[in-house]
């Protein structure tokens, strides 16, 4: 194999960290969606904080599809915290793996 071919081969095996990182973030945003009581919610720190401080046990929240969904606060809060933690831990683990990879 000529030197030029070897260089081309190496370039073709190279992977761009920024692109991989962006795809991983996008996947994490998808995974943050959680179905509840017929609605679909994307969990965010704001949603978790809101549920934590809301004073009553029942409330209505707007879901991803702009529908008002009846929420049992404690139950939904627990669900959101658990799901958020799982997704964010996975994000961290996978990010640690991809940031070291420069060649496939």
């Amino acid at each position, binding site marked *: 194999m000529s030197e030029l071919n070897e260089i081309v081969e190496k*370039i*073709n*095996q*190279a*992977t*761009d960290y920024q*692109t*991989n990182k962006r*795809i*991983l973030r*996008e*996947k994490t*945003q*998808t*995974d943050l*969606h*959680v*179905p509840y009581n*017929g*609605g*679909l919610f*994307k969990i965010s720190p704001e949603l978790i904080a809101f549920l934590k401080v809301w004073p009553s046990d029942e409330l209505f929240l707007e879901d*991803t*599809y*702009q529908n008002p969904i009846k929420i049992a606060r404690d139950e939904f809060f627990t669900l959101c915290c658990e799901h958020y933690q799982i997704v964010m831990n*996975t994000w961290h*683990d*996978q990010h640690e*793996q*991809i940031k070291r*990879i420069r*060649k*496939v």
Partner: protein
Amino acid sequence: MATKTTGLPVSLVTDPDTVTDYPFDHVITKENTLKNYKVGEAGAWRNGGRYNAYDLTPYDETIVIDADYFVMDQNLVKLLEQDFDYRIMQKNNLPGNQWKLTMGMVGLPYVWATVIIFRKTKKSEILFDLVKRVQRNYEYYRRLYHMREGNFRNDYAFTIANVILNGYDLNETQGIPWNMLTFAGVITDIELAGSLLKIREDKKAYVIPKQDIHVMDKGFLLSENCQQLVDQLCAA
């Protein structure tokens, strides 16, 4: 692979000539009478009978996916827990950027018929009937909606049917709320490495989390490498 990932039964809709070894829940055959189909290096690509899905499905709730869409995570299943008639994939990303296209220079932004989730309801039935009507009168709708291409595209037919059904309201949210990830280039190999996928294109490589992907390279789908990937995913 989809059954392994989602736990849902999978049925195949194909023409009577297709032979498959996979243990599908149902293999539904339908004579292919389409005159309008693509012939590429990987063979003939007939993709025009999508409106039959409503009548052919043996299920009350159905996720219609193209054969080039790999189901590797649980996200589509989440949608089945909600109340809806149908959901269509609306947003599509390439690895580097968003694939944001309209049907023509002044046309509608289009949906992706690659993934459609529907229940057997009146509204879903009307959607598929409308797609059939658009396909039958495609030349008329092509001119009406200023489409760029002349050949039939399911994506465009579902876009028109969807917008008519929603009272021409482009803000109506019937879509799947996340992005589909599409690889449009020539794929040489996809390898599962733990919770990551290593995807090699002819001039680039990606390392991404294991997730649903849309692979447009029909040559790869018919390759030994693709078979190995499916075996690897099913064994994982």
